[in-house]
């Protein structure tokens, strides 16, 4: 599957969920594994609710991070979601 496009509405895949929040880090649980998330990765995945489009997520993060390099944020979000898709953590 290719990268998500601007209109994609990324969501956590079936069988993936957040563990209870725990300080600065948050744990995402999925079949046979878990990842500890902080920083941008966490910010992105917390917005993958099946409602927001990729474009909305990117705009949101550009606003939050001062949008110094809007193109870079867009590219990084796309790349990160593609990686998460390959691990079967995110669908879009």
């Amino acid at each position, binding site marked *: 599957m290719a990268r998500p496009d601007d209109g994609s509405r990324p969501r956590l895949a*079936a*069988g993936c*969920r957040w*563990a209870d929040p725990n300080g600065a880090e948050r744990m995402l*649980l999925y079949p*046979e594994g878990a990842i500890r998330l902080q920083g941008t990765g966490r910010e992105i995945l917390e917005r993958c609710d099946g409602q927001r489009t990729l474009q909305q997520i990117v705009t949101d993060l550009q606003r939050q991070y001062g949008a110094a390099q809007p193109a870079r944020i867009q590219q990084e979000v796309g790349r990160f979601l593609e990686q998460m898709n*390959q691990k*079967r953590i995110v669908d879009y």
Partner: protein
Amino acid sequence: MPSGPLALIAELTHRCPLHCVYCSNPLQMQKAASELTTEEWIRVFGEAGRLGCLHVHLTGGEPLARTDLTELVAGARAAGLYTNLITSGIGISEKRLAALVAAGLEHIQLSFQDSRADVADDIAGTRSHAYKVDMARVIRKHKIAFTMNVVVHRQNLDHLADIISLAEELGADRLEIANVQYYGWALRNREALLPTRGQVEQSERTVEEAEKRLRGRMRIDHVSPDYYARYPKACMGGWGRRLMLIDPAGQALPCHAAGVIPGMKFDNVREKSLVWIWQESSAFQRFRGEAWMPEPCRTCDRRTEDFGGCRCQAFLLTGDAAATDPVCSLAPRHELVENVLTQINVGGGQVEVAPKPEWIYRPNVR
């Protein structure tokens, strides 16, 4: 002191309608009368959650043989654990599955023995393949993670491409292709199960091609046969490092097969807390860390990656549980594995499908 365990393997029962010739249960199985009660399991899940455990794997035997499985799933979820059911599918109805999902089941691993019903039913010693296919379709109606699980060996490795197609057709999110590991029942049937070198090489190409093709749709996790590897597997992620197994009667083991090692004493969750067992019990300390390691492990750069391999395999093949795992090409007793491989691969390793192997089937327990 190690943190963790990260996952709890809950062998809810050793009862099972299947008789798979490579079953990971011990040769001496626990009887139904000795099984932990509903309340005892739920207490164990609570202790595991507080100990920092993230996942629970509900397994057996066949966990569906427990009539209280829905309550156990609910109890595991209430303890904050990610709840995975490892099952043959025998005993699931549409209604029962819906109840399990409603109770909080998040991931189901359905075992298949082959893509072909005749071989699958021969391996399982029960007619079960067609039923599993039906059950997979029922599972797929629910929004939970679905893994198809296939143990591979000499009798089915040549069907690997078809096995992958079956997983696609059934809509699995994940396919686990695990080569047989040769302990209890599997070691008894090793001669008919161990694949040839040609099969192993071909299967690696098949998996690689499928992974590329299915990227983003289905994840494939592939466990290679350690007999053909250069270095041993990091068995259980290291002894007493990541996993704790509770058997049906409440004994806590560092791995499925640890009971074969002489002199092991397993504490029971009926008498001791999980935290004490993890931190203090002799069973979990016995091969934890590096102090027990012989040469060449002791000074090997790989000791922090593979932890010297599998203790049970070391014992079963060499008679010494503290020996370097003989699958390692550096092991002093590596010839034990080499000799078996030579026998299997003699004359280019003709795969004998007929005559039918004389299997030693795992019996059921009551």
